[in-house]
């Protein structure tokens, strides 16, 4: 899969995703070298502060070894089940893959704390299916924790196209499920289907690109050559 990086989601986006969700359950991730600099204990600490600034209460927090591993997530989610039950949302301080795995395990709205993007390059092919395309403006908080960029053949942002029939995708109904049908199913199960009425703005493809700062850092590591 492509090499992943994360950066904190802009505060106004995070605040919008937590609107009317006063109590927040926070999960951090220790994996991928502390989520590429934004996870680990420091990540948890940062979001304690951020949530306090946004006036939200942290009902519980846990640091998971690898948020992208369901067994690791379950360990903490089970142990903290009573706290989870009191939460209005689960904030996951991890990459897009971790957020999606957590979203598959809890029946609360899951909010990504970070945006996952790619500086270019690839690491080992660990997954048969790509579940995060490093789009740099994580939508998982609006799409029930399923990524429409990778799970929809067209990467659509505003609901299924007319080709979605019986939960299958028009591109290959035999082999491909429709990602949006899965999102719809999960939103409906949690009584949030009407959130589909709100228009998700067009993708900001400029956010896919690494920042000047990161490019400079990579260039320094590579001896003055950013490779782009």
């Amino acid at each position, binding site marked *: 899969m492509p090499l992943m990086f994360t950066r904190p989601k802009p505060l106004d986006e995070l605040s919008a995703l937590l609107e009317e969700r006063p109590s927040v359950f926070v999960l951090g991730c220790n994996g991928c070298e502390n989520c590429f600099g934004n996870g680990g204990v420091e990540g948890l600490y940062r979001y304690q502060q951020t949530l306090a600034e946004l006036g939200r209460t942290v009902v519980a927090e846990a640091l998971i070894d690898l948020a992208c591993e369901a067994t690791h997530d379950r360990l903490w989610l089970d142990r903290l089940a009573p706290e989870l039950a009191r939460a209005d949302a689960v904030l996951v301080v991890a990459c897009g893959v971790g957020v999606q795995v957590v979203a598959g395990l809890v029946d609360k709205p899951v909010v990504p704390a970070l945006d996952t993007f790619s500086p270019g390059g690839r690491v080992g092919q660990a997954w048969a299916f790509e579940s995060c395309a490093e789009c740099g403006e994580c939508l998982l908080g609006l799409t029930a924790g399923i990524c429409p960029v990778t799970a929809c*053949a*067209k*990467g*659509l*942002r*505003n*609901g*299924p*196209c*007319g*080709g*979605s*029939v*019986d939960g299958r995708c*028009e*591109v*290959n109904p035999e082999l491909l499920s429709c990602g949006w049908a899965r999102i*719809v199913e999960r939103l409906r199960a949690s009584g949030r*289907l*009407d959130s*589909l*009425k*709100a*228009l998700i*703005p*067009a*993708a900001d*493809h400029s956010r896919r690109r690494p920042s000047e700062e990161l490019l400079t850092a990579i260039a320094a590591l590579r001896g003055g050559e950013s490779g782009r």
Partner: protein
Amino acid sequence: MTTLRQRLARREYAITVELQPPKGSDVKRFISKGVESKGYAHAANVTDQQGSVMRMSSLAGCALLLRSGIEPILQVTCRDRNRIALQSDLLGAHALGIENILALTGDHTALGDHPQARPVFDLDAPLLLSAASCLERGTDLAGGDLQGAPTFFKGAACNLDPQDPELELFKMEKKISAGAQFFQSQAVFDAGRARSFLKRAGRLGVPILLGVVFLKSAGMARRLESIARGTRVPESMLRRLETAADVRRESLAIASETVRDLADLVQGLHFMAFGWEELIPEALQGAGLAPTARAESDEEVTSGD
């Protein structure tokens, strides 16, 4: 103001027909179909490489129709053009005198005759509608000022016999808030189910044109379900076509019955005839919407201006 817009605003029935530009440079047949359509339709949709099969552009097709005095509806999909190209085409369309648009997401490139092509989908149907609305307000999607703001009559597609009615209503609402001013539906073959859906969709307050397709055979009906996904043809219809002595007559009868059953709940008809355009006047007559009556009311519209 376009005739389509005017008629729908006055709660008058509107008839539209879908025409495909040629795959090639010979436009004679396309134009003659357009000229024929003047006898029964108020406006003609020009498809944007339907099914992802490469053809002449819908923009060129609309310009050709306009020259022959036919009011065009520009179908625009998000399959091939990013937001820069889409906005640019919309500005061009308006400058050429094309104001009716039908904003579609578009089929995936994998389904067409160029599966090697890159699918774009930088926008989707609701975002394309909001892009058109944005241009009308005098700015582009990036917030830049325009020299002259266009006006459009913006349409969107809908399915009147959806598997998931609640979801379809949400999608329609979203399109309306993004700027949709009319809907053209996919073909309907189960008038009963469409009736109950239309009662709910009618409350959205945006005119709906009922999609009509002539089924050429039972085989074509089955293919239609995979080409125009979401279209559902009941078994009973397939049997009627299989056992019919004259398939054209039967197909015409099926279409007229559906139109008659639903006419009171829609504000017009949208024909997708796939080569059987000559059946349209008869279908209209069969449903009590004779084309001659249409021509008269059309004169009223023009003399009223």
